[in-house]
């Protein structure tokens, strides 16, 4: 790691102020991606602003029609939350399979979505469940938040504070992990919320999470798993690497969507 200044912020305002006064300040949430990146000297922020003590950034609330999860809420907390497991079990299951137990104990939803790793699970969860991303400045739909590989709509210094998930009628997430990293080679969140069917795919595309229109059409209002399995997804613009060809990823989108649909019932 290169050296940096470290500050533990005491409030949202304190965090934002510290970031804006730094040359190149970076927020530190759980650090599960940022710290490995720093260790490999792939980033050189001047300042790290630790959000761990900003108390009102963590927690889960049930607003009736939606569940709002504070940005600093860990994956383990989401996975074990009674509210989430009862109202959106698909989201609890997704969180419960991110990384490994130690990552889940420290990694946070805000950190994950702000990083927008193209193989991370939460982006598919957010887009599939039509979540709203809440920042210190605004609220925006998940589809508009995730813009490209490791790119989001966040402006310099803008801080994710919470994510609000409408409670779906049915939903399930199916992931096909990379055998080495265990990130998603393909992960699909299938959800039906207020009559709308969504299938959001992570891991597969060269530009990050996306909604698979042909899969959504096949799933229809009945979440037809068999129909989803028959969809021949195009391999154009899908990732290819030593672990999976674009064609294999395209195939897995149909399979995982089908399995998610079957699990969602």
């Amino acid at each position: 790691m290169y050296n940096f200044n470290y500050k533990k912020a005491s409030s949202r305002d304190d965090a934002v102020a510290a970031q804006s006064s730094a040359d190149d300040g970076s927020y530190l949430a759980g650090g599960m991606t940022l710290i490995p990146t720093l260790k490999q000297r792939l980033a050189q922020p001047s300042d790290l602003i630790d959000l761990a003590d900003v108390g009102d950034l963590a927690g889960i609330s049930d607003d009736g029609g939606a569940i709002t999860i504070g940005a600093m809420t860990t994956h383990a907390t989401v996975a074990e939350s009674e509210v989430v497991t009862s109202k959106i079990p698909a989201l609890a299951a997704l969180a419960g399979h991110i990384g490994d137990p130690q990552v889940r104990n420290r990694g946070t939803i805000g950190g994950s979505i702000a990083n927008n790793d193209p193989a991370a699970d939460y982006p598919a969860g957010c887009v599939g469940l039509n979540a709203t991303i809440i920042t210190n400045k605004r609220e925006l739909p998940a589809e508009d938040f995730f813009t490209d590989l490791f790119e989001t709509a966040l402006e310099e210094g803008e801080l994710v504070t919470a994510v609000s998930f409408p409670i779906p009628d049915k939903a399930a997430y199916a992931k096909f992990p990379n055998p080495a990293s265990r990130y998603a080679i393909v992960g699909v969140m299938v959800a039906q919320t207020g009559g709308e069917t969504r299938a959001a795919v992570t891991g597969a595309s060269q530009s990050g999470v996306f909604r698979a229109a042909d899969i959504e059409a096949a799933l229809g209002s009945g979440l037809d798993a068999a129909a989803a399995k028959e969809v021949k997804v195009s391999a154009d613009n899908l990732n290819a690497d030593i672990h999976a060809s674009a064609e294999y990823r395209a195939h897995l989108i149909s399979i995982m969507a089908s399995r998610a649909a079957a699990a969602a019932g």
Partner: protein
Amino acid sequence: MPTVSMTVNGKSVSAEVEPRTLLVQYLREHLGLTGTHVGCDTSQCGACVVHVDGESAKSCTMLAMQAEGSDVSTIEGLADGDTLHPMQEAFRENHGLQCGFCTPGMVMSAVDLVRTNADPSEQEVREWLEGNLCRCTGYHNIVKSILAGAKAMQG
């Protein structure tokens, strides 16, 4: 340099550190607690697992500063004097270790599993160990040890 303070294995400790100091470096290099190991640089092997405020964490993926005010426990703090913790004893009895390098992280991770799941199945143990690599045992005897250790911890 900033000062960091925490409790490690029940003892209050404090030191000046560079902000870039990892928790594992602080434990090994400042406190001489070399039981916590470093086996990779991508946060995957789990040789560095310790408990921070009661939950397992990878001490190679945490700054020492992030543990400010925390209660940290390491493999050195697990046994009760000369009496091994039931999970340590289960590893010994079931040949759950060979070279011993991954062992501290395995044991600390296993103890945290039992905290969250008192009676895990074999499959649950195998899935829990996603963040702990072992190259010697093929995991067969590690899984056996953890199942036995979990039972022993229930008394």
